[in-house]
């Protein structure tokens, strides 16, 4: 673990991802400093998830990355086995679109959560059980005792994503990668998860990389955004600048499409201004739409 204060948490330069035939990602650069909130936006096939998997050192066979991918001082392109695990456990953790695929169906929520807490915080017995409940409370799950005893099929999709976030946070990472974390969720549940991510990274001083196809979602919790298309970086910049003065015609088209649909909705009412990005003091707590 390299925790030099000046070094970026994630340094991606000239990233290229190939399968046996062709380049799926080429020439992507991304730098994430402690506390940064960066969005990666793109449509299907843009390479945004492959970029995330490259950072995590988890590209599936036969995909290979080349270029520079350094996370917490470790070269993730060459890191194998334990070296990669050390970075994934402590510097970076990730949550994905479908928490069902990353959670164990046979293990209670409490046991799945106890494992990383025991490992990263060195707790056992009663202290460990208390820490498990505390971390379920941290992600604002109602009735943590019940959730800890439950298997994941016994809780709702939104609650599962909260459990996945709790497990990711239990590792006390310095950066959280969230790949389409709300895409499979209902809109009222999504609002709660975005609030939670927002609060969790702020309170812990963590960095966040949020990957999404949805400009509104990305602009709600990040400050800077990387736009990707067909495996290439289209442009990068401050969210506000990208939305108001996109430099690339593709970005302009994405923004226009999102605005065209949004134009059919009523304008945001006065009292709701607290929800706009930039004002992160609003913390509305869990929404009610997450019953199992």
């Amino acid at each position, binding site marked *: 673990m390299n925790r030099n204060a000046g070094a970026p948490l994630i340094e991606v330069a000239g990233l290229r991802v190939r399968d046996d035939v062709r380049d799926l990602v080429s020439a992507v650069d991304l730098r994430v400093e402690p506390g940064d909130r960066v969005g990666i936006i793109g*449509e*299907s096939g843009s390479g945004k998830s492959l970029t995330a998997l490259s950072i995590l050192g988890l590209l599936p066979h036969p995909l290979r990355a080349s270029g520079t991918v350094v996370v917490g001082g470790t070269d993730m392109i060459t890191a194998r086995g334990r070296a990669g695990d050390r970075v994934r456990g402590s510097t970076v953790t990730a949550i994905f679109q479908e928490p069902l695929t990353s959670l164990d169906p046979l293990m209670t929520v409490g046991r799945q959560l106890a494992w990383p807490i025991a490992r990263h915080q060195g707790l056992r017995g009663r202290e460990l059980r208390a820490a498990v409940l505390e971390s379920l409370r941290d992600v604002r799950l109602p009735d943590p005792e019940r959730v800890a005893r439950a298997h994941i099929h016994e809780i709702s*999709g939104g609650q599962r994503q909260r459990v996945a976030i709790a497990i990711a946070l239990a590792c006390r990472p310095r950066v959280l990668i969230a790949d389409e974390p709300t895409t499979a969720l*209902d*809109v*009222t*549940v*999504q*609002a709660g998860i*975005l609030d939670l991510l927002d609060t969790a990274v702020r309170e812990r001083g963590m960095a966040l990389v949020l990957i999404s*196809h*949805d*400009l*509104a*979602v990305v*602009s*709600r919790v990040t400050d800077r955004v990387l736009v990707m298309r067909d495996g290439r970086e289209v442009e990068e910049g401050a*969210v*506000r600048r990208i*939305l108001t003065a996109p430099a690339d015609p593709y970005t302009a*088209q*994405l*923004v226009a*499409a*999102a*605005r*065209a*649909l*949004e134009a*059919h*909705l*009523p304008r*945001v009412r006065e009292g*709701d201004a607290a*929800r*706009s*990005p*930039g004002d992160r003091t609003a913390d509305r707590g869990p*929404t*009610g*739409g997450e019953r199992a």
Partner: protein
Amino acid sequence: MTGTAPVLLAAQGVSYRYRGAERDVLSNVDVAVGPGASLGLVGESGAGKSTLAQLLLGLHAPTAGRILFRGAPLRKGDRAAQLAFRRSVQTVFQDPYSSLDPRMTVGRSIAEPLVSLGAPERSAAARRTRVASLLESVGLPADAASRYPSAFSGGQRQRIAIARALAPDPAVLIADEPVSALDMSVRIQIVDLLRELAAARGLSLVLVSHDLSVVAALCENIAVLHDGRVVEQGGTEQVLQAPADEYTRRLIDAIPRLP
């Protein structure tokens, strides 16, 4: 829905319970769509909106209440009436990757309802002409007919699925999340296409969507479903601007907006 407006397809006091289930997924639902009008069914997962769409399509019979088409209840067993109903009420599904048979050419897929529903195009040549005109109406070249679905993008496949639904010249199109599986920049194109087609053909549209902006773009009326009940319905603008129901308000407030 107002009692005086003409009604083409309606659910009246409809409840539905899946076999073996402990409770109704729909309870006492009243919705209606008039000729050339459009109705959006919105709600979150489990609200019952897709079940309601399936009942309106006549795929299941309601446990209580009735589905009325042109004022008459759907009659099981009357084959001629069933065929006429299927010609008149067509559907488009969410996922164009699974709703098109990968082994059928696009032309055959589009012509399939013409054959199976006994459309007036009896000869192969007449069907080819009809397919070409349908492809044109959804913005695809006529030579698309000889290719397979795998040759097309998601948005193009959804255009093909729409062309197939239009083949028997229906009066009502029921679209269940027709743009949810598509990329953002493609969504708006399909929304525009559906709006143009509905207007040009005087088609009634029933649109199921979790996305309020898509419904607002396409439908003059909206019914908000929550836990199997219609909690609010009326003119889309009215409901979105001044929601009367607490759940509707929560739904609208939860939509992330661009700054």
